């Protein structure tokens, strides 16, 4: 069997950007010399390539989405659990509410076990591209570990001395624009007369 050109890094995840009920999804693949982001909108796959030599950073920002979701699911599970206890005399209601409670609690626990959520983006010299398929910090770190040697091989490494030299040679940020001094006492600024 021939070697596959791409290795999957993430499964397709729904892209939350276009719309709440959108079917658009995104997945991340590892190529020979680039990362491939596939966006699928239900009938067409769109490809975007990020070459290793161009990638400057993989930005991972921890979010509270997972925690909030787990709390909501847990609270709903508790609510249905209490309903099941309250309606324990009705077998149908007991099984339905109990089943719902179990499902929600299991979802909350599974969500919590996957670890904290994250918002990841890929930075190049000309763009910062969000990676909707990387949603967990743990997975993002795993991807980063896969990418590190490839990026190093494509871009080389800098010694600490070289990094310090680069920082020193970087031009200082421009001074913020200063306000014009107020007119001296008795000095009338020019006015345009109608």
């Amino acid at each position, binding site marked *: 069997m021939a070697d596959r*050109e791409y290795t999957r890094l993430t499964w397709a995840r729904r892209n939350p950007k276009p719309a709440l009920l959108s079917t658009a999804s995104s997945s991340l693949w590892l190529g020979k010399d680039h990362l491939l982001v596939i966006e699928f909108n*239900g*009938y067409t796959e769109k*490809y975007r390539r990020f070459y290793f030599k161009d990638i400057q950073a993989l930005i991972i920002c921890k979010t509270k989405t997972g925690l909030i979701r787990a709390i909501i699911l847990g609270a709903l599970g508790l609510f249905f659990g209490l309903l099941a206890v309250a309606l324990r005399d009705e077998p149908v209601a007991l099984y339905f509410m109990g089943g719902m409670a179990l499902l929600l609690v299991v979802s909350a626990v599974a969500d919590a076990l996957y670890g904290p959520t994250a918002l990841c983006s890929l930075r190049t010299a000309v763009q910062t591209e969000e990676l909707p398929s990387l949603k967990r910090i743990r997975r993002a770190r795993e991807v980063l570990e896969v990418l590190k040697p490839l990026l190093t091989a494509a871009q080389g490494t800098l010694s600490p001395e070289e990094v310090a030299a680069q920082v020193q040679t970087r031009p200082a940020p421009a001074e913020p624009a200063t306000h014009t001094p107020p007119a001296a006492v008795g000095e009338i600024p020019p006015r345009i007369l109608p």
Partner: protein
Amino acid sequence: MVEGEASCFYHPQKKAVRPCDSCGRFLCALCDCELQGEHFCPGCLETGSKKGKIKSLEKERMRYDKIALSLAVVSMPLFFLAIISAPLAIYFAIRSFRVPSSIVGSTKVRSLIALVLAGALLAGWGLWVLFLVKNSNG
């Protein structure tokens, strides 16, 4: 340009440095576009990008197998629409066998399932029509 030297196809006054790997036209350093070890002229690069001949420039692909499967699955509960959607599903499933699927590679399982489902739906339609004809005659 020195007499006897090959000139660029696009810039006759400039010296050619190499031929295009696709069309063979001579190219100067300015027109030589290197892509993953291959050298193309701007024309071939544009054509390759538009027609998907150069894989690394391909920007999108239609997933006929997924369209076929979606149509076949959607047709299941909407039996009366299946007379239109099932042949469409069969068409897209057959088409998916002829064109390349996803750039990352995929199996033909979706197309096969779509073919089976759409075939079953059409068979169901056929039986239903036969039943109606038989009842109207009888």
